[in-house]
């Protein structure tokens, strides 16, 4: 909509700081982190501003800030580029629209000045009719261009959002788990929801408002000067005052705006936390203290808002004041000039009409400023995410592996985190196809690291991991994941039905195959007891699907995927003893013809392996079939086994 129809005489809408409408749950995640010790350390280690490094902090040095702004602009440029033709067209449309809009008061002036006298003189009204016709044409042109503009701009905006959403989502999915471990899901969600929304808001209302405001300001200014230089100069004389007020507002609001964001985030953090922890809150009678804290935070937020509201509350009447004084001056001076015969009544009327249009868009600038700021912040974060490179990249020219046999070899594999001692100093390991290997060792021995390297969640810092003789880094994602599947303690259940969740292991699987997989690992019984069996919506189980049941679903999923290599990292930890027994029995059959790597707490699970590796500090201490290791009698595994037998007695 144009400047004229969007606000009252005093520009009512701008006063809403755009913040609170869009801050999501995850803003919570973002804040608070900044003041914990570990995050501060983390920040120190990443003094570089590339990627998502700048997200944690409010104070950014000038140079870095310039870098971030350039990066955001680059992203914006990339997003806009495909539409540059349409945008050029849009510019023309906007120009035409504004020309049409601005011409109306001028035509009114011409009509009054030149159309009326002939009629008064009793002559023909043809001139008036012509002018009225022109006003009609202008009005229709304005409507048509406006309509086209809104449609085109809206469609472009939505297309940009779609592209951005797709790009960021896909990028997040490509980034390695290492990144996600650090970044947390809350922030990921926040990027894709509240940040995209911020840009949405800018595209939806901000740009339109700004473009119209700027064009109206410039166009009207020029027109006023053309209409009458003297009066025009009086009107343009208001410019410096407007500029000063706007500058004052921009500075003040940047601060006030940031403060509202901070305070609302604090409210949200407290709110979400106490809601999620309501059981503990009520069990420990924490309610009064919570209420106290909440009311204090809420009041901080109120005060921050109050400050922002009052800034707008001064800005708006300020602009109004300048406008009204200018109108009064133009009125007096114009009347004087009219008496002197230097301007006509029509010019004066047109002037007053234009002046209204002249000051109104100023109000819109305060609105635009808020949207622009939050969109800018969002763009900065999104461009940071897109700049992150997956630490586990896809190969440029992948080696094909149509059917994996499942032979896994680790050659001199080393791994360590950036700032720590090496987890694996250099491991040699060959697992022939079909063998089941159990990893045994104390916490920190490197068991999970081996699992993650074999499933390429991480890449080794030295050496190679080979599947059927091919470096994992040379396999494309689809081939690799078809061949190697890992099940961990983490049993995420997606929305949808139980069947959907199992089908996740192999999207093409039939209902029978799904049921067969569930039966094989002993999940069928509990699923059959659910209200709609396999078609029960997970959300309708009301979170009452226990950890053990989720784990069984995860097992069925992995079984259905039917990989050549199956990696189980503490995958049975949430099961109660009888269920675990069931799974162990099932595993014996399932693992018979595939390569498997098992990490487990309990010795009974280890027992089903063909081969046991005892690890310490990333080195293999013992290696052999469990019976052989036990029979040897002097090793760690033998000790372990003896202790177990003792406990059974």
């Amino acid at each position, binding site marked *: 909509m144009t400047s004229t*129809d*969007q606000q009252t*005489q005093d520009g009512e809408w701008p*006063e*809403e700081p755009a913040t*609170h409408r869009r801050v999501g749950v995850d803003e919570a995640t973002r804040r*608070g982190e900044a003041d914990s010790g570990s995050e501060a350390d983390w920040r120190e280690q990443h003094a570089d501003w590339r990627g998502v490094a700048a997200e944690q902090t409010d104070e950014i040095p000038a140079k870095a800030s310039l870098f971030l702004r350039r990066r955001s602009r680059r992203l914006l440029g990339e997003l806009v580029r495909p539409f540059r033709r349409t945008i050029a067209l849009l510019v023309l449309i906007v120009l035409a629209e504004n020309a049409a809009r601005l011409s109306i008061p001028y035509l009114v002036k011409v009509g009054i000045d030149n159309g*009326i006298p002939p009629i*008064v003189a009793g002559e023909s009204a043809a001139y008036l*009719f012509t002018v009225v016709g022109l*006003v009609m044409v202008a009005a229709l042109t*304005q*409507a048509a261009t406006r*309509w086209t503009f*809104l449609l085109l701009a*809206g469609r472009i*905006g*939505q297309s940009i*959002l*779609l592209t951005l959403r797709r790009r960021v*989502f896909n990028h*997040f999915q490509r980034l390695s*788990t290492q990144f996600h471990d650090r970044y947390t*899901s809350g922030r*990921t969600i926040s990027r*894709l929801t509240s940040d995209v929304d911020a840009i949405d808001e800018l595209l939806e209302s901000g740009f339109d408002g700004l473009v119209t405001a700027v064009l109206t300001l410039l166009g009207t200014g020029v027109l006023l000067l053309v209409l009458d230089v003297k009066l025009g100069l009086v009107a343009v004389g208001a410019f410096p005052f407007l500029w000063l007020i706007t500058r004052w507002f921009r500075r003040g609001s940047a601060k006030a705006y940031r403060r509202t964001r901070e305070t609302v985030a604090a409210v949200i953090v407290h*709110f979400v936390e106490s*809601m*999620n922890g*309501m059981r*503990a809150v*009520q*069990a420990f009678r924490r309610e009064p203290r919570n209420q106290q804290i909440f*009311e204090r935070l*809420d009041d901080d937020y109120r005060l921050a808002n109050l400050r922002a509201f009052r800034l707008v509350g001064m800005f708006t*009447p300020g602009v109004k004041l300048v*406008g*009204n004084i200018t*109108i*009064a001056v133009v009125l*007096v001076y114009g*009347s004087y000039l*009219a008496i002197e015969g230097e301007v006509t009544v029509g010019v*004066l*009327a047109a002037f*007053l009409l234009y002046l209204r249009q002249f000051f109104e868009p100023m109000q819109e600038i305060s609105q635009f400023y808020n949207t622009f700021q939050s969109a800018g912040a969002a763009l900065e974060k999104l461009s940071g995410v897109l700049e992150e490179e997956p630490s586990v990249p896809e190969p440029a020219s992948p080696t094909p592996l149509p059917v994996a046999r499942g032979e896994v070899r680790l050659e001199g594999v080393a791994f360590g985190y950036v700032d720590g001692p090496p987890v694996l100093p250099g491991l040699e390991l060959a697992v022939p196809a079909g063998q089941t290997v159990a990893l*045994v060792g104390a*916490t920190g*021995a490197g068991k999970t690291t081996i699992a993650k390297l074999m499933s390429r969640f991480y890449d080794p810092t030295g050496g190679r991991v080979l599947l059927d003789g091919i470096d994992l880094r040379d396999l494309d994602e689809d081939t690799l994941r078809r061949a190697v599947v890992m099940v961990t303690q983490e049993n*995420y259940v997606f*929305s949808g039905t139980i069947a959907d969740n199992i089908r*996740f292991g192999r999207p093409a699987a039939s209902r029978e195959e799904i049921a067969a997989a569930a039966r094989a690992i002993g999940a069928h019984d509990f699923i059959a007891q659910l209200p709609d069996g396999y078609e029960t919506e997970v*959300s309708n189980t*009301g979170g009452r699907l*226990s950890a053990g049941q989720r784990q069984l679903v*995860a097992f069925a999923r992995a079984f259905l995927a039917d990989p050549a290599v199956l990696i189980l990292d503490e995958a049975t930890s949430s099961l109660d003893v009888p269920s675990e027994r069931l799974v162990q029995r099932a595993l014996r059959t399932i693992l018979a013809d595939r390569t498997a790597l098992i990490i487990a*707490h309990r010795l009974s699970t*280890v027992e089903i392996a063909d081969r046991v590796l005892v690890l310490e500090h990333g080195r293999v201490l013992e290696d052999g079939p469990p019976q052989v290791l036990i029979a040897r009698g002097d090793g760690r595994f033998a000790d*372990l086994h003896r202790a*177990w037998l003792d406990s059974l007695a």
Partner: protein
Amino acid sequence: MSLTTEREHPARRSGIHSLWRFRAYLRPHRGVMVLMLVTALAGVGISLSIPLVTAALIDGPIADGEAWAIVPLGLLALALGVLEAGLIFLRRWFQANAVLGIETALRDDLYARLQELTMEFHTRWPSGQLLSRATVDLSAIRRFFGFGLLFLVINTVQLAVTIGLMIHLHLPLGILVAGFALPIIVLTRRFQREYSLISRRVQEEQGDLATAIEEGAVGIRVIKAFGRRRHVYDSFDDKARKLYGSSVDKVRLSARFWTFLEVIPNLGLVLVLLFGALAVGRGELTAGALVAFITLLLQLIWPVAALGFILAMAQEAMTAGDRLGEIFDSVPDIVGGDVELERPRGRLRFEGVGFRFPDSAEEVLHDVHLDVVPGETVAVVGATGSGKTALTALVPRLYDVTSGRVTIDGVDVRELTLANLRAIVATAFEEPTLFSMSARENLTLGSPDATDEEIRSAVEIAQAAFVYDLPWGLDTRIGEQGLSLSGGQRQRLALARAVLARPKILVLDDTLSALDVHTEALVEEALRRVLRDATGIVVAHRASTVLLADKVALLQDGTISHVGTHHELLRDVPVYRELLGQDAEDLDVEEVLQ
């Protein structure tokens, strides 16, 4: 937690009644509301009178060529202009205070109500849904009370007055302009209907998309493990494209409507110019009056266009009012009684207790009888999903029994005040909840006055001395937004918290599950001392934990089937043997090697 779960929609449509219930919040600000209305109306009056001054200038001094007469009228215009700005300032200044006051009061009350509501409510409502009510919906209501309501009144007044003025200036032209109101009203209503449909659709699709985003983020490791990036992307893309389609529909609808609202006054202008100029020509109207007429007409553009806006805002506020109403209308179904036990001894009895979740027909527990004398500890053992946690939640009344009763020292827990009951009972949960605050505050949740010695001794019992080694010791911020702790560490803190509360009845809901065998043994050793002075309920998976208890209750098919000592049950009950028997007592490989 899904942010998007759609609540069941109330049968009746949201209307003005949805907001009327909140009128009490306006009451403290009555004075300001009146002031706002008065200043706003005065502002409208002034902005209407400035064109009249112009008319007077054109028809008076200019027509008569009397330069001296310009000054007083000019000064009048100036004074009016300054006054208008002053009134706007005044209104906004007070309005900010009132409107934010209303919002803050509503939010505080909402929070208080949410704290009163029971676990039954909180498990049903994802916190994202509650949050969106506390933020998005509240600002919708604030916007309406602050601006929408005011301008609904003012714009209507302004429209009426302006049209009245026009009719006064020139009857036929005035009526002509008034005639344009008809198509506007009709089309606005139609737009309103269509718009509310489409924006609800957009909202729902945004919710679906948010779910896809959430799953993509939270389930990233599973997605990677199965290489299902494309599968997940497709489902995301499907939703994103749906949203795109609806958003474009929305754009199309509003483009049409906004253009329409704009073109109508312009068409009015065309007619006014035509007939006005003719009227001036015939001498029925002065040139000044025509200018004033046109200025007034242009001033109508905003109020007309804004009506659509304001009505949409009102609709939004009413929906928000309904959404808030859903919470304010939820009555806490667990309220305290008025009995206080001065010196509780801690005798706990379950008398024929039955329990089912409110929205399910199936009983989780039935006919549960259990008597625990002061100082005695009972272990509750059962398979996954057998209702152990539900049983323990009945004691501090996180849930209420659906039949039978739970008594403490012979008094039904429902007769005790909640404060008293929850001081007597402390629970350490399996999934420990830590808040983003200092370790100290987390520990003293149930006992704000605990001394440093008391804290130390509780921390030692729970083997949680690691808190003293945190960067800032007890003052280190931990919890969800703070320093991350391992599952075992969190459990130990939660245990220390429960111990620190010095309850007469201590409930341990599988509190030790994430501890390694070694630490577990140490904790159990220390716990024995605490449990000597308290009545204990211990939910257990491992035999070692069961040994903390004096007797064991076996929960089977929703009821306690056997009570006895660990050895008795091992000997006599095959099911128990299967659950906790020696052959199940597996060795923890990791621990032995550590």
